[in-house]
């Protein structure tokens, strides 16, 4: 429990701390890796040589993301009525689904909730508890996909030393969550929706292009030239809302110390590298450490890890099998 509170603090913006207590088994592994350095290096090289470059999870994820968003589009265009509405609120063959953050904004601004809204919100809440909380971000949010593509461009420019990544304080997102909630409550308008690239892109995909896409483009330009993945990392309150749901979720990435060569490739590809602090040499407090709730379960680290130290895991289920 204590470690979950620690992980929530990290999600809200705190720097990850070195664990106070390291279990004897983990300590043994840490010591072993220190002692047989040559052996360890040789194994590492061996792993490197035999690494199979895989984009399995990324490809699956992109396919799911496109499928979800295009299901909205085609439900409307072809009038097949499977998934009607947009990401903010919809009906899946008649059942209400309401995005948690949009529901929060409406509830705070309007100060009145009707039954359908409660049903839709609860459905989505339980769905994402089951599916991993911020997995909404990487597996469904259309802005995430577009931002990923532009991130590639950003990294290319960083490589050529044309741009640098300017980081912000991660606590900014927590502040934004509070500010947007507060503004909805005080002004009586769903202020965040004005800027939300998730809502804008989702609607544009379904109802056609809008001027608002210009704003989304500006955001992407900002991310390419100034700060890597700035919206998702430092601003978007939707991510934090689903992150909180993720604290309850059994679906997570599991880190296994014994398979790790501490090369740090996972942190380089990660949207939220602070959740991967345990991959630093000597940091893992147990032989198996679950990745915190801020993780979007995107699987990029799973794909990139040459030795399979990071794996998808369903709490409880793996033990049963």
């Amino acid at each position, binding site marked *: 429990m204590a470690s979950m509170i620690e992980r929530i603090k990290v999600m809200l913006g705190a720097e990850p701390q070195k664990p106070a207590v390291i279990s004897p088994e983990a300590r043994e592994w840490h010591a072993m890796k220190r002692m047989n350095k040559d052996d360890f290096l040789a194994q590492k090289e061996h792993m490197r040589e035999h690494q199979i470059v895989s984009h399995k999870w990324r490809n699956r994820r992109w396919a799911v993301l496109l499928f979800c968003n295009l299901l909205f589009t085609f*439900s*409307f265009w072809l009038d097949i009525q499977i998934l*009607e*509405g*947009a*990401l*903010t*609120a*919809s*009906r899946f063959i008649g059942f*209400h689904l*309401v*995005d948690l953050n*949009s*529901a929060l904004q*409406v509830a705070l*601004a*309007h*100060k*009145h909730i*009707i039954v*359908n*809204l409660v049903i*839709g919100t609860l459905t989505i809440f339980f769905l994402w508890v089951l599916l991993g909380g911020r997995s909404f971000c990487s597996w469904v949010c259309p802005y995430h996909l577009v931002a990923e593509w532009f991130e590639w461009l950003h990294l290319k420019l960083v490589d050529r030393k044309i741009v*640098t*990544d*300017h*980081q*912000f*304080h991660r*606590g*900014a997102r927590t*502040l*934004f969550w509070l*500010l*947007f909630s507060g*503004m909805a409550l005080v*002004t*009586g*308008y*769903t*202020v*965040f*929706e*004005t*800027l939300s690239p998730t*809502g*804008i892109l989702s*609607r544009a995909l*379904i*109802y056609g292009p*809008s*001027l*608002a896409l*210009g*704003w989304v483009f500006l955001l992407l330009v900002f991310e390419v030239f100034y700060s890597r993945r*700035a919206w998702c990392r*430092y*601003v978007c309150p939707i991510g934090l809302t689903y992150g909180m749901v993720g604290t309850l979720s059994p679906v997570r990435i599991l880190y296994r110390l014994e398979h790790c060569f501490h090369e740090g490739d996972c942190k380089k590809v990660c949207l939220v590298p602070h959740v991967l602090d345990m991959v630093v040499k000597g940091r893992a407090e147990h032989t198996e450490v679950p990745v915190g709730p801020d993780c979007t379960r995107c699987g990029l680290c799973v794909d990139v890890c040459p030795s399979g130290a990071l794996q998808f895991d369903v709490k409880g289920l793996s033990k049963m099998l």
Partner: protein
Amino acid sequence: MSDAPDRDRDGDGGEELKPPPGAQRPKVPVRKEAARRRFIRSTALACGVVGLSLAGWIPTARAYKPRLRPPGALEEKDFLASCIKCGQCVQVCPVQAIKLGDIDEGFGIGVPYIAARDQACDFSCDAVQCILACPTGALTYRKPDFAEVRDGMQMAHDPVLKAKANDPEPTLNLKERIGVARLARPEICLAVLGQGFKGQARGAAFKGTLRYMSVDRWKPVPVREQPYDRAVCDLCVTECPIQDAIRLEEFVGPDGATRHRPVVLEQCVGCGVCEMICPVEPAAIVIDERQEWEGV
């Protein structure tokens, strides 16, 4: 990642970061400086994003685009607060009358409206399905008790739909109007001028559709496919989907001849069909959006 490598690209020269000549610069102050910059940057980001999002208030407060909202909409302030911007109302409308606001409408982004001149709500759905589709109650059959009710917005009785006049239940489940029609330009109204109308009401290029009971009760058809031939133009009256909402009144013109003019009645719900069908350009009759009935 450290901020150290970019200190000279920040534009402020990074003067204070340069170590004094010949001295090894201690590590801590650099890190402190980086943290300070990150803090300033983060504050700027917070102010920027909050400022931009609140800029959405300007077009809303100035009513830069007064919009006709779909039937059953709460009062404008409540409507903007409660609408979740999903467009489910857009999807169920059989005549695609409902559009969504863009970012130039500020807080009105993603909020549905009806541009009546292009495509009015003709109640082809019979049941006001946009209300049925709304997940948040922003469009509602019955306003909750706390919601604001303005005098003159409530209908004297449920409007009777002409198309359903012979059904056991001929009324629309609609308690409030969304606006009121007004003969804004009597000087160009064909009836007032004593003229008839022949041809396509809005020309060959017009994309709007309307339910014509004589063609198909369940399938609205393009207006351009239904040419008219009227001795006295009365399209706004005959095409009005609501009973007793508008009628043609005779009067004697300045030249002593009998003329006609459309008179809007209390049962007008503000659907905008009259504005859409009006064959003159610009429309002689328009909807005053969210306007209460003030009596005659």
